[in-house]
């Protein structure tokens, strides 16, 4: 399967933050969720891809082409939704689109109108009369109306109520089901990522912790819970990250079989429990827990 997006050693340095040698690849027809805390580097990656920031090192290939060689041609096939930007309040949807549509060779007004209809938006509506959810839908309609093969979205569900959030996620799933498109979207809401992403890239303090398929994550990571008195140096070294509480501890491991084998007696009386780790569990432990690995 060809890579739609490929990042190699992508690096961006600021005085107080470094996006450090990010490697990531998104195949055609899949959704990649970029998850991490606020300030982890998700938006920096998206801005680098869209040319809003200049990278210090590494390369970005989209549809197999180097972004530096023909950015405008590549951008013709990218639809995007940015978290920080907005549309002009005093414009109507029609006026805004009249301007935007001229930048895209493959702009399809019929498809745009179809999306507006399905999102219950009126062309004559002024932007300032739209709710945050409606603005998000308008941005999505714009992103989807020029035959984009790659949709990039920065925190598309941030600040939306649960119902609209669910609607947006459903729209993204439908886009993928229709075929021929890939989506990269960032979120600090791990449940959104968990819900629709085929691949999950977890970024923390500018570094990729993992970039794996959802199945691989489900197979790899385990959450171990046990009484705090069991936790000593011998057992701690088998965990990637540990969170200690008053009476017990929870830990994330990628080597649950070894733990089960080495400490079988601990599990015999069911004092320690091993279960599949959710994205929230993994994030929480890797970000907030004590690191041993």
């Amino acid at each position, binding site marked *: 399967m060809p890579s739609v997006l490929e990042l190699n050693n992508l690096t961006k340095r600021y005085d107080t933050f470094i996006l450090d040698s990010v490697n990531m690849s998104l195949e055609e027809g899949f959704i990649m969720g970029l998850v991490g805390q606020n300030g982890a580097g998700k938006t920096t990656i998206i801005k680098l891809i869209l040319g*809003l*920031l200049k990278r210090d090192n590494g390369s970005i290939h989209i549809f197999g082409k180097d972004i530096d060689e023909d950015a405008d041609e*590549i951008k013709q096939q990218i639809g995007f939704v940015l978290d920080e*930007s907005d*549309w002009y309040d005093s414009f109507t949807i029609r006026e805004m689109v*009249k*301007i935007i549509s001229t930048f895209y060779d493959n702009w399809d007004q019929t498809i745009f109108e179809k999306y507006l209809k399905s999102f219950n938006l009126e062309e004559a509506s002024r932007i300032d009369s739209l709710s945050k959810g409606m603005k998000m839908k308008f941005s999505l309609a714009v992103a989807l109306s020029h035959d984009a093969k790659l949709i990039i979205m920065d925190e598309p569900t941030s600040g939306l109520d649960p119902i609209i959030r669910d609607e947006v996620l459903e729209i993204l799933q439908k886009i993928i089901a229709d075929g021929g498109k890939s989506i990269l979207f960032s979120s600090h809401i791990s449940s959104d990522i968990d819900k629709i992403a085929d691949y999950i890239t977890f970024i923390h303090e500018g570094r990729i912790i993992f970039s794996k398929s959802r199945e691989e994550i489900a197979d790899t990571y385990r959450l171990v819970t046990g009484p705090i008195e069991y936790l000593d140096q011998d057992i701690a070294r088998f965990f990637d990250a540990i969170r200690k509480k008053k009476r017990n501890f929870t830990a994330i491991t990628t080597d649950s079989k070894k733990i089960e084998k080495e400490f079988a007696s601990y599990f015999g009386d069911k004092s320690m429990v091993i279960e599949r780790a959710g994205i929230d569990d993994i994030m929480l432990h890797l970000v907030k827990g004590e690191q041993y690995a």
Partner: protein
Amino acid sequence: MLSLVYKDFLLQRGGKSIIYLAVMPIISAFAFSTNILNIILPYIAGSYLYIIYANALDDKYKTEKIFIAMPIGRKKIVGAKYVGMGLYMFGFLIIIGILSFFIRLMIPGFEEMALLSWSIFVQFLSVGCLYYSIFFPLYFRVGYQKSRWANYIAMIASAGLFALLLKATSEMSGETLSSMQAALNYLLTLPEGVWNIILPLLSVGLLYLSFNLSVFYYGKREF
């Protein structure tokens, strides 16, 4: 690129600047008969309002990010701002030109009113080019918030250039400052219309340098 020019024009509807931009050329056309300053200064003030309003809204909604992420190219985004101001200048002159023609023709007492000439166009061009040449590179380098002061400086500098130009030419012609027409007449008497050829060339050259500087700075800007 013209879509971006159109966008800046549409943005003017949102504030009082559209009223100013529509009314001032008309008032200026009536005032034109007495002093060329009556049209140059409103033009400078109009340019200031036009720029400040469009750029402030770009900044407020952070739409520069949207346009840069689109397949436009930063050079075209820069070009659109320059073209927009060029069109504003021509629009201002055309309105004054047409109105002053009809005022002279139809309203008693305005028969001796001046008509637009190459000299007046040259002065508009010089003042406008100086204004935009100072302001835009700073704007594209540091953005709206940090370049607001530059807009004041550019406005004052261009108005100052015009005053100096008038002072110099009127003194050369032996006339007083109030006799602007005499100054303009003197300019026309210079050998081979030196002012009217060199000044536009210098102005356009300055604008060209400014444009390239703006493209250079904007190419490096991060959002």
